[in-house]
């Protein structure tokens, strides 16, 4: 019997048992739905982190800190090398980098510059006649992609210039993003070493160079106001001079001359006792997290499929029982065992195809519809978190057809083995 005839007959007998077919394939559809969505979320998530890392980090940049002592349990022992260069935080104490370390790192081959992460803790930012607002200050890096709502710092940022975010433009009473450009804002910083009885503070003024727009891709633009490295150092120096932690840094950024050398420099720094992370490391770490999440989702999908396998086996066994007579007749008419088996396997294949198509189709529909909602809820701007690739949908559907055929094997074998005489005796 020709395979085409069998496929058509299989399809027809499923059509005659519509509700049963649909119900069985719905079980598979649940699995297909989950798997398709988790694949889309994985693709979208990796794409998203890839963009984030690309727009926030620089392939030529390494983030360097002191290597934490291995297998540290309990409080850390004091040693002369630590030399008091420890910052204690609520999370524990961290060894920090001093000017000595910076000088050592500077000497490593291929290193262009070493910039401490100043992160100056200012009191507030304001403008004449406006309220005072707290703000976090970051340093501007020309290699990190920013999106601008107004103005641009692509030509560099001078030491008396600042990049505001849209939120601060509004808060500081500018009429529009465009109107803020060229305006002046004041940052007030407090000298930490000044005695409590005689607090000392100073006002620093900056001209607004650009306004960064809220983008789903950037970490910094959302919260930090950006100034140049030199300005940050000036602020830092004013605030911290005279304190214990002055010129002790948790993290420094190391710029290498070529992105390809980042790994070699990392290895050298590691052997020197520092912990260095390249852009690729950061991407890898975030992606590991996404992969684990995706794995969990896929696991649920697989579980649903496993359940539906028993559904198919059960349905097909019942179908064989119901159609004993038909099987007997077909065999009496000379239909070969192999073809009888194929008929039932192909019916299972149809069920799998239907389930896969329904499930992944629904997932595509739901995903496409909810993409804008998710982006809105998570404040991601124009980023789509669910990306459906036709290849992965095709793989899901084909995979489910194969799984269904495999689960149809046992019932198909039962059908093929039926003795035609016994089958025809069944009334």
């Amino acid at each position, binding site marked *: *019997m020709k395979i085409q005839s069998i496929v058509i*007959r299989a399809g027809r007998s499923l059509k005659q048992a519509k509700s049963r077919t649909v119900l069985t394939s719905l079980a598979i559809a649940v699995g297909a739905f989950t798997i398709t969505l988790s694949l889309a979320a994985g693709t979208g998530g990796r794409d998203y982190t890839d963009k984030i890392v690309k727009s926030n980090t620089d392939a030529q940049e390494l983030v360097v800190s002191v290597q934490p002592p291995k297998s540290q349990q309990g409080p850390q022992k004091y040693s002369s090398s630590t030399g008091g260069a420890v910052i204690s935080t609520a999370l524990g104490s961290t060894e920090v980098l001093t000017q000595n370390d910076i000088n050592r790192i500077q000497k490593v081959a291929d290193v262009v510059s070493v910039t401490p992460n100043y992160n100056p803790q200012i009191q507030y930012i304001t403008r004449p006649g406006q309220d005072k607002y707290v703000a976090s200050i970051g340093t501007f890096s020309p290699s990190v992609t920013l999106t601008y709502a107004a103005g641009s710092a692509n030509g560099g940022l001078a030491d008396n210039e600042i990049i505001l975010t849209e939120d601060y433009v509004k808060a500081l009473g500018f009429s529009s993003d465009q109107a803020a450009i060229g305006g002046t804002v004041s940052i007030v910083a407090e000298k930490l070493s000044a005695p409590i009885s005689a607090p000392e503070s100073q006002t620093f003024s900056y001209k607004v160079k650009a306004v960064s727009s809220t983008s789903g891709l950037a970490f910094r633009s959302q919260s930090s106001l950006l100034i140049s490295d030199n300005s940050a150092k000036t602020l830092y120096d004013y605030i911290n001079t005279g304190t214990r932690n002055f010129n002790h840094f948790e993290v420094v950024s190391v710029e290498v001359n070529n992105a390809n050398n980042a790994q070699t420099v990392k290895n050298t720094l590691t052997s020197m006792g520092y912990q260095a992370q390249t852009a690729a490391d950061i991407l890898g770490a975030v992606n590991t997290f996404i992969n684990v999440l995706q794995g969990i989702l896929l696991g649920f999908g697989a579980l649903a499929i496993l359940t539906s396998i028993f559904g198919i086996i059960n349905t097909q066994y019942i179908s064989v029982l119901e159609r004993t007579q*038909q099987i007997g*007749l077909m*065999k009496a*008419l*000379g*239909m*070969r065992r192999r*073809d009888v088996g194929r008929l039932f396997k192909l019916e299972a294949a149809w069920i799998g195809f239907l389930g896969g198509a329904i499930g992944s189709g629904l997932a595509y529909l739901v995903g496409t519809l909810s993409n804008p909602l998710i982006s809105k809820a998570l404040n991601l701007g124009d980023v789509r978190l669910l990306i459906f690739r036709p290849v992965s949908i095709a793989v899901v559907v084909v995979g489910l057809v194969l799984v269904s055929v495999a689960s149809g094997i046992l019932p198909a074998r039962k059908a093929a083995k039926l003795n035609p005489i016994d089958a025809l005796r069944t009334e």
Partner: protein
Amino acid sequence: MIEVKGVTKIYGKKDNAFKALSDVSFTIPDGASVAILGKSGSGKSTLMHVMSGLDRPQSGQVIIDGKDILKLKTKEVDKFRSRKMSFIFQSFFVQANESCYNNVSLPLEIADVSASRRRTRVDASLKAVELFDKKKAKARELSGGQKQRLAVARAIVNSPKILFADEPTGNLDSVTGAVIENLLFNYHKRFNVTLVLVTHDSDLSERCDIQIHIKDGVIDSIKRKKL
């Protein structure tokens, strides 16, 4: 020619063994009509199954056109059946959910006949049993007599050499039964097809060239009509 030689068929094993056929032998010439008669449980259905290769006896030979079909592999017997034999059953065994067309088309699909040839042959077959106007109707919508006519159409569509009919009129009233009877005998005469009828209807059996009476698995008598 069909030669049945020393066929013995035993069902069950050891203590439960039941001899359905015991050393049965006879010969049927090509194009003859044969009635196999006997009470229920006499072994007449088993004999039909053995002759068509559906059932395998413990010993004996069934030689059709010089070939012992009991020595063939299952695959080859299936092929043999699909090319040369056809069946009509007491309870029709038409596929209720399928259209009349697809019911009749099944044997041709099994025999790998091309779609275009299937179409002409199915149409011709449905016309022969006067069911052409029901071509697209589902078999379940047919009456009992129409269902059996559909079964006849299915049986003749592949132009068989041998037509087996197991109590073909058993489930029908006398009028519709007579229609089926005439269809079968007309086809048998017109195309010189060997017709093997299993029945306990004496009227039906009297129209046959040969009457084989079976009793408790052995041949009671064989009557051949003088031509």
